[in-house]
């Protein structure tokens, strides 16, 4: 850690992981409600459990991105953060707003929550990922403005590296893309069409740029490769993201009431969306092979290499399987989509968050890398979570295919509830893999409580002995 003000990243990272823990607990409850529909029904209906699960996901990823920004921007700009105090106040505002929102979900019936928070004045509630009441949405905008002000001022007074320009630019994009959440037209087709500006615009556009910037930063630091090369790669990858992804949004417009030309445009352009993920893999491995130093933080390196691979698997491969219009005709809005959503969100954004946390947290705690024992726990957590998530995705893919075969095709299609019954074994598979994921998360979190730093002398002795 080169600048004292980078320390404000620490509470962001800690809160991110705590919220991640909460996300998984609610995921397990939601998964259980698939198996026993009356499970906890009187305490929290499925939709409430689900929105808590997905909103905690978004909030912890935003926490991690913000922490990453407060850590990276000063280091790249070679100057202290413009206002560490503002960053800390913003942290508490964001955390408390998130906590209050979850409490609201759990204690107040949703329609009542809408009534007491002014939803009738500016309707925003009742859309996926955007379930938050109006005050929370306004809070998110204020938090974003504070972040943008802080990092932009830091950037202005410091060195303007490409990593920093990309990161700060993408954070501006993230905030701008959130604004359509205040636009909820009465025409449902227009509402769906514009909802995707946020959801697709984030995960298949703007956040990919953030992912690239974070990965680029980590790899520059850990491999010692010339930043010119890294930044050139990043621009090419980002160009491919936008070439494929902007019109590629059409893969959400096939069957919602939009004109039929989207069937062609969406299929052709979104079919190219895996390319930037392939390039990311090539980029990461090229950096690995050209490395000029051996960084002692092996766990961070594993996260950094694992991210592009898992992102390609979840977003590139699973995304491709559902992206062409003829395939989507049968699997649109099934658990196949959920399989893709899980593998992609985890593989790309959860993993890149853990990569930057893995790299930065030891520094924030005053050491270059954690002890070998702590790293062993972290690496074990990595593998258990990654393999469990693949298990979750395979189970949900199975469930999605059951729907495609029994409900969406054939001369005598079965009804939804009947089909869900036939897919039961896959819902068990998801829940068991989910329990595995939870175990992996505990193992991962345990690694943070193992004290001590990486001992060079011990490693040298061991190397000489063999």
């Amino acid at each position, binding site marked *: 850690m080169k600048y004292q003000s980078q320390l404000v990243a620490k509470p962001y990272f800690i809160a991110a992981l705590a919220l991640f823990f909460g996300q998984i607990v609610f995921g397990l409850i939601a998964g259980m409600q698939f198996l026993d529909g009356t499970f906890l029904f009187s305490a929290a209906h499925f939709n409430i459990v689900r929105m808590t699960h997905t909103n905690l996901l978004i909030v912890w990823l935003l926490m991690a991105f913000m922490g990453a920004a407060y850590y990276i921007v000063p280091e790249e700009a070679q100057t202290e953060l413009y206002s560490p105090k503002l960053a800390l106040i913003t942290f508490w505002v964001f955390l408390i707003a998130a906590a209050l929102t979850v409490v609201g979900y759990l204690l107040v019936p949703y329609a009542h929550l809408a009534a007491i928070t002014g939803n009738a004045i500016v309707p925003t509630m009742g859309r996926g990922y955007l379930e938050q009441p109006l005050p929370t949405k306004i809070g998110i905008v204020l938090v974003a403005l504070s972040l943008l002000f802080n990092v932009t001022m830091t950037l202005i007074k410091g060195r303007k590296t490409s990593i920093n320009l990309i990161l700060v630019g993408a954070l501006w994009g993230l905030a701008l893309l959130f604004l359509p959440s205040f636009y909820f037209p009465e*025409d449902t*087709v227009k509402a769906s069409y514009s909802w995707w500006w946020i959801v697709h615009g984030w995960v298949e556009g703007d956040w990919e740029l953030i992912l690239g910037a974070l990965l680029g930063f980590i790899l520059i630091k850990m491999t010692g490769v*010339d930043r010119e090369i890294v930044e050139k790669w990043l621009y*090419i990858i980002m160009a491919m993201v*936008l070439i494929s992804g902007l019109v590629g949004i059409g893969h959400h417009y096939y069957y919602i009431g939009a004109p039929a030309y989207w069937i062609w445009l969406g299929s052709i352009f979104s079919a190219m969306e895996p390319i930037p993920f392939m390039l990311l893999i090539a980029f990461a491995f090229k950096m690995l092979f050209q490395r000029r130093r051996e960084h002692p933080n092996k766990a961070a390196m594993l996260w950094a290499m694992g991210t592009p691979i898992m992102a390609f698997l979840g977003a590139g491969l699973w995304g491709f399987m559902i992206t062409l219009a003829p395939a989507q005709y049968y699997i649109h809005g099934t658990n196949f989509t959920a399989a893709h959503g899980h593998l992609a969100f985890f593989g790309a954004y959860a993993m890149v968050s853990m990569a930057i946390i893995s790299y930065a947290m030891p520094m924030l705690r005053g050491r270059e890398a954690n002890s070998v024992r702590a790293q062993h726990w972290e690496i074990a957590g990595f593998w258990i979570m990654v393999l469990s998530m693949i298990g979750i995705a395979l189970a949900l893919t199975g469930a999605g295919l059951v729907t495609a075969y029994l409900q969406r095709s054939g001369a005598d299609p079965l009804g939804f509830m009947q089909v869900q019954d036939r897919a039961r074994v896959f819902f068990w598979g998801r829940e068991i893999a989910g329990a595995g994921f939870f175990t992996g998360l505990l193992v991962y979190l345990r690694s943070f409580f193992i004290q001590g730093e990486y001992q060079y002398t011990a490693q040298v002795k061991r190397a000489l002995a063999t």
Partner: protein
Amino acid sequence: MQEVFTKSMARNIFLGSAVFFLIIYLALTYDTWQQIPVRDHADKITASVIRGKYLVDTNDCIGCHTINGEGSYYAPELDNVYKRRGPEFIKLWIPAQPSGVAGRRQMPHFNFTPAQIDDIVAYLQWLSNVDTNHWPPNIEG
């Protein structure tokens, strides 16, 4: 490393493609915006349909169901439920929830007035007539 292809060239390709494809997307969106009201019979979005939609949103129906394939995968598709079940069935179904059948997925009780249920049915009827390029494949949704 040869400097035939420089970083600033890469950056310009990025910025150029961003602007170019954004303009294309905006133009397509403009055209789509003209076509949507025809395809979804916007003239039939009555006050009752609007009230129904507001109830569907503020009770988070898509937290369990899908509408045109968007939402959650816990409960049946609502886009064509009007055609699948018909208005009378829906009017009886909603107030009868939750079923309380052990282990079966439960739909909450919402305390709607009969007039509110009529609005929801009006919204579902409007939805079922949107031109969605022949999706879903069959009546089961």
